[in-house]
């Protein structure tokens, strides 16, 4: 029973409670809008022990604020203005910034209005455990609400509201702590208005409100030297220092947003995502709907300050200026190594750099082929910047050499780890200590006068190449949330902790309600070695009627993770567990992931079971879903299970059970392949770690697969498909499904062309079945690895699979191309994938175990969650791959060192050419699963239509011709870039020609 009340209000209040404004609709119609609001006196201040306000939560601001600031010995709270969050979010997020923060509703709403990503960061900041933040809903409190006055801009109104809020807080503190006669007057903490808006500060001073600029405030803090570096460059422009100087603009100005929207509407301008080119930093492309080919942007002026990922507006040049993309590798570090970071750049320097860039561009231009012409254009405006914090190294050559030990402020270049990004110019006092470290840098602005974007230092991650720093930089680069779980989240775990057991069987207990007792079955799990989060287990028995009962049992995560609690929302935002070579970043707290929800052997666990009756030909006769209690009889590793199957002497029940599963799996697989499922390949390697503690890689090898791998896979696929059908039937609007769209045939054009010209093979891409068949035919009798190579290249032409909400796409696009299944979902790994948790909840509702939570009825909600999960999933894959790459690099380093010690030789490997450039080759080393670039400085003959490159031999002789798919031998070396400390795999050709001198 809730208390229902009426909000009473005086008639006279209408002036401040009603708001009238006019708004124009998209069609140009003007609408009058009247809104009212209810002002109240029960909006609480959030200060601990306040006698006026009654607080219900326990996360409050300390009674006397923070005493750490020099100017406020009596303690203080900060009340930041909107511009602080818009420009200085990194400062506010820093764990060194410990002052208690009062966040006004006005500020919160203004941030939300200006930038959603910043708003989300702000909300995360409010919930951080180590921050003390209180949101004060000033617009709803009668004393602090403001109404926009005649002729006042919205911005001025908000500023006034913020000042009024600050003034109220100060008077509120003094009113609630009056001087008691006979006692000394109490010391009152101050509420300080923090703003970089000069006008606002002046007005505040006039009204007697304490206010400070961010820089001034930070200077008075105890650990200011570290915090000062976090200040963004923008704070300098608001209080302008000496102007940079009379240089002409390097870039054209952007058009106004009005012109942009009009241009896009008229079809003269085009909008799209800007993609930088990995191989050539002077080239980028934008995919726009108006052209089938991407619009090419050549040269700095045409890219006009766009950074990879930005949404830009481009103007397309007339057709006679269209060009083919470059076929040369242009490395930013090489071309621009002489550029000076200090702002006082001399004109002469400038010209030199520009000349060098021109040369790079021109040398390409001569070679542009007519056949592959693409539309070209230039960026005329930016719709949305997609800037975030980037992992960088300090370029040591940009330091003034006399300064290496001083702590004066200097301007340096930060080179991002990702090749897609430009160098960032930043100012720091800590430059000497940051050399050789991985650091996080954010871009603040990019002026027309500045060749490089300007940014500021966020945080140091640690020494480059140290495992911790590399790991963290990986996680940051791919936006993986890796903070430890907060208290609110851990509170959602069962209170028994790891003592939790399945309660004794009783019909009444909540754990046993509607659960089947499957403890007697011979269930076992089969996983990779050292697997801790076992989320699936299997069993099979013969039925009296000759059919076979097979069951897949999945950890019942939805029993522990209830909808809409802090743990659930955290899991939703993490989306997936991320596996790095030596670390796992869990989606759910470890207690669940590796214990309560892990189907360990010999203990009782809750499970969600899918049980089929299969005919001996592996056709589904019947399927049912049930929540259950199981007790796994054994946890196998893949190879161990394989040994059991192969060992004819073993005839116990468990072995019979997996043998039966194995025969069924083979039939299922055959059926799937006949239906046209693809057998794709991606380079997978395994890293051997020395021991779990030191985690020094000693070697790399390709992963070996045994039959039992596919045993588990087949049954998981079957379970996923069965569940997908069930939840789609039950919830046609909101079922959580997964699909893999067929790739557009144009994606394969290049590969088809190469295959035809080089090997005389053809690839039929009309359907997944046809593709599978023609891939099987791509064989080279002399080279078994050739088929795998083609499969890898074909995989790269495909789209990636995605989660979707069944109500939001048309039914004929549900299919999974790779698996050749008309419907699919993810159900089998709820410990490590959030989509599976949703599927579990929907399936539980479909079998009427529990009613479906309201949020899963809302299409918008499901779409939003799945959008996030898709993104996280992609990022997690990339992070995992990058982690493997890093360890392969480390392992290589070890090999190179050993090779040098023993016989002074080089590390050589066989490799395949997968792409040819005018001045280099892109090769793939299948043994190590890495790709590398072989560059030639000498003149070469390049035939773009035939994908061949003729290289003269070292002595100037005839040389050799190399084409795509050719097998070559390369020597591999790991070399540390002197300036950036970035470990770089360097390859050189050994056979057919030794390219060391080239």
């Amino acid at each position, binding site marked *: *029973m809730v208390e*229902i009340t009426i*909000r009473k209000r005086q008639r006279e209040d209408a002036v401040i409670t009603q708001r009238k404004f006019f708004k124009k609709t998209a069609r140009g119609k003007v609408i009058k*809008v*009247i809104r*009212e*609001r209810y002002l109240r006196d029960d909006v609480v201040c959030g200060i601990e022990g306040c006698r006026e306000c009654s607080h219900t939560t326990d996360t409050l601001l300390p009674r006397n604020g923070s005493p750490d600031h020099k100017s406020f010995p009596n303690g203080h709270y900060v009340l930041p203005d909107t511009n602080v969050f818009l420009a200085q979010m990194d400062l506010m997020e820093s764990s060194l910034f410990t002052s208690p923060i009062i966040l006004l509703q006005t500020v919160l709403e203004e941030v939300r209005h200006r930038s959603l990503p910043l708003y989300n960061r702000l909300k995360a900041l*409010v919930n951080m455990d180590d921050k003390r933040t209180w949101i004060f*809903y000033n617009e709803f409190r009668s004393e602090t609400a403001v109404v926009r006055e005649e002729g006042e801009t919205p911005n001025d109104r908000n500023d006034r509201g913020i000042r009024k809020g600050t003034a109220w807080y100060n008077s509120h503190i003094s009113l609630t702590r009056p001087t008691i006669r006979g006692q000394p007057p109490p010391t009152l903490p101050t509420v300080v208005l923090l703003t970089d808006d000069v006008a606002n500060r002046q007005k505040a001073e006039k009204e007697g409100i304490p206010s400070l600029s961010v820089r001034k405030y930070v200077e008075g803090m105890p650990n200011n030297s570290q915090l000062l570096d976090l200040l963004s460059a923008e704070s300098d422009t608001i209080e302008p220092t000496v102007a940079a100087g009379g240089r002409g603009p390097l870039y054209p100005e952007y058009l106004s947003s009005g012109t942009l929207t009009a241009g896009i509407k008229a079809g003269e301008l085009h909008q799209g995502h800007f993609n930088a080119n990995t191989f050539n930093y002077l080239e980028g492309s934008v995919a726009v709907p108006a052209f089938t080919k991407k619009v090419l942007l050549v040269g700095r002026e045409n890219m006009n300050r766009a950074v990879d990922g930005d949404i830009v507006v481009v103007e397309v040049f007339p057709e006679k200026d269209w060009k083919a993309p470059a076929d040369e590798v242009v490395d930013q570090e090489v071309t621009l190594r002489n550029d000076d970071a200090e702002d006082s750049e001399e004109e002469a320097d400038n010209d030199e750099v520009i000349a060098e860039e021109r040369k790079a561009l021109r040398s390409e231009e001569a070679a542009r082929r007519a056949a592959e012409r693409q539309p070209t254009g230039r960026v005329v405006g930016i719709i949305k910047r997609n800037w975030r914090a980037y992992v960088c190294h300090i370029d040591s050559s940009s330091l003034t050499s006399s300064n290496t030990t001083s702590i004066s402020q200097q301007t340096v270049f930060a080179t991002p780890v990702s090749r897609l990004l430009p160098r960032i110019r930043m100012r720091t006092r800590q430059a000497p200590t940051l050399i050789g470290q991985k650091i996080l840098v954010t871009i603040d602005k990019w002026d027309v006068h500045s060749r490089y974007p300007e940014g500021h230092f966020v945080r140091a991650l640690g020494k480059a190449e140290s495992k911790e720093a590399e790991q963290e930089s990986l996680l940051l680069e791919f936006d993986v949330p890796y903070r430890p779980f907060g208290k609110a989240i851990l509170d959602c775990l069962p209170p028994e902790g790891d003592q939790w057991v399945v309660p004794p069987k009783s019909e009444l207990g909540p754990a046993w309600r509607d659960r089947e007792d499957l403890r007697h079955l011979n269930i076992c799990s089969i996983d990779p070695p050292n697997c801790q989060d076992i989320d699936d287990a299997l069993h099979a028995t013969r039925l009296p009627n000759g059919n076979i009962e097979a069951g897949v049992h999945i950890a019942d995560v939805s029993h522990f993770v209830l909808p809409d609690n802090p743990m659930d929302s955290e899991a939703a935002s993490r989306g997936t567990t991320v596996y790095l070579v030596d670390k796992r970043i869990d989606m759910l707290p470890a207690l669940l992931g590796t214990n309560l929800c892990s189907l360990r052997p010999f203990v009782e666990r809750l499970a969600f079971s899918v049980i089929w009756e299969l005919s001996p030909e592996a056709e589904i006769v019947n399927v049912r879903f049930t929540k259950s209690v199981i007790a796994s009889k054994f946890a196998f590793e893949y190879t161990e299970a394989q040994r059991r199957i192969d060992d004819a002497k073993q005839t116990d029940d468990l072995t019979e059970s997996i043998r039966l599963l194995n025969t069924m799996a083979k039939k299922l697989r055959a059926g799937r392949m006949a239906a046209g499922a693809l057998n794709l390949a991606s380079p997978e390697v395994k890293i051997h770690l020395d021991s779990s503690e030191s985690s020094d890689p000693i070697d790399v090898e390709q992963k070996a697969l045994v039959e039992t791998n596919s045993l588990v896979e087949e049954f998981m696929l079957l379970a996923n498909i069965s569940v997908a059908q069930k939840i789609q039937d039950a919830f046609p609007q909101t079922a959580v499904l997964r699909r893999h769209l067929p790739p557009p045939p144009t994606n394969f054009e290049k590969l088809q062309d190469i295959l035809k010209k080089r090997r005389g093979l053809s690839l039929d891409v009309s359907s997944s079945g046809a593709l599978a068949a023609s891939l099987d035919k791509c064989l080279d009798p002399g080279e078994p690895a050739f088929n795998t190579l083609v499969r890898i290249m074909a995989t790269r032409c495909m789209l990636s699979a995605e989660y979707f909400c069944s109500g939001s796409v048309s039914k004929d696009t549900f299919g999974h191309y790779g698996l050749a299944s008309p419907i699919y979902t993810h159900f089998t790994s709820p410990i490590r994938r959030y989509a599976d948790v949703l599927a579990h909840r929907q399936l539980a509702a479909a079998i009427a175990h529990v009613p479906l939570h309201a949020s899963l009825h*809302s299409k918008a909600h499901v779409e939003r969650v799945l959008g996030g999960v898709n993104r996280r999933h992609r990022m997690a894959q990339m992070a995992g791959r990058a982690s493997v790459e890093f360890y392969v690099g480390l392992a290589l380093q070890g090999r190179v060192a050993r090779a040098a010690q023993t016989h002074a030789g080089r590390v050589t490997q066989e490799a395949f050419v997968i792409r040819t450039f005018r001045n280099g080759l892109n090769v793939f080393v299948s043994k190590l699963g890495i790709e590398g670039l072989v560059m030639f400085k000498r003149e070469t003959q390049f035939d773009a239509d035939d994908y061949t490159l003729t290289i003269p031999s070292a002595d100037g002789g005839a040389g050799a011709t190399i084409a795509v798919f050719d097998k070559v031998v390369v020597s591999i070396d790991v070399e540390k870039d002197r300036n950036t400390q970035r470990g770089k795999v360097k390859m050189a050709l050994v056979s057919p020609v030794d390219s060391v001198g080239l």
Partner: protein
Amino acid sequence: MSSRIEILNDGGFRSDGRRQYELREMTFDMAEQAGADGSASVAHGLTQVRVSVFGPREAKMRSQTIHDRANINVEVGIAPFSTGDRRKRSKGDKRILEFASTIKSTFEPVIQTALYPRSQIDIFVHVLQQDGGVLQACINATTLALANAGVPLLDFVCAVTGGVHAAAPMLDLTTLEENDLPHVTVAVMPRTGRVTLVSMETRLHVDRFEEILRLAGQAGGVIHKEMRAVVRERTKGLVDAMGAGVRTSDFAEDAMVADS
């Protein structure tokens, strides 16, 4: 996030500063409109409605008379200036006709029509300003106008709108909230707890529905108290004016509303 305005923020406040279960300011005005037999103005927040009741009187058209009870005739007019975009609705507008018939069917079981055979009761509803909850305002206003006109009713009819945001139920929605949330208008007779109207134009999940229905029923009770106070006040005024201010305690309700 589709809308720019948060329907319910983290502090538990709605976009207009109310909490989930708080109703808007409501004013009930039973001032007499000279020509009508009974009239009332009702405002819920910015929504304003005026209802005039004529009758029971002889039917204008013989064809509309019913031999054993009174015929109820509801006409609704929505002022063009009542919403932000001026839009003139014709009288034959299907939306308006449906609206009128909803009100009619809500009151048919409540008005003791059998007492007035072959006669007609006219209810004219004028919507002056809209900001969500128009139907609830119309029903509440009609109850008061009928009481004012001395038409015998079985009970008050109190209506309120309820909606759900994510999983949080809320009461008395504004236009902004109505546009975004699934919502349902419920009219209850507080004395018996019977429900005379449930009107729902958006999709609401069954599990939620029960919760909202119960909540709206409770809120109806709160509104009932408010309305009864106004009726008593008004009756007390009338009785005082007649110089017979002796028994005022139970008289008011008994006089205005026949007991069931």
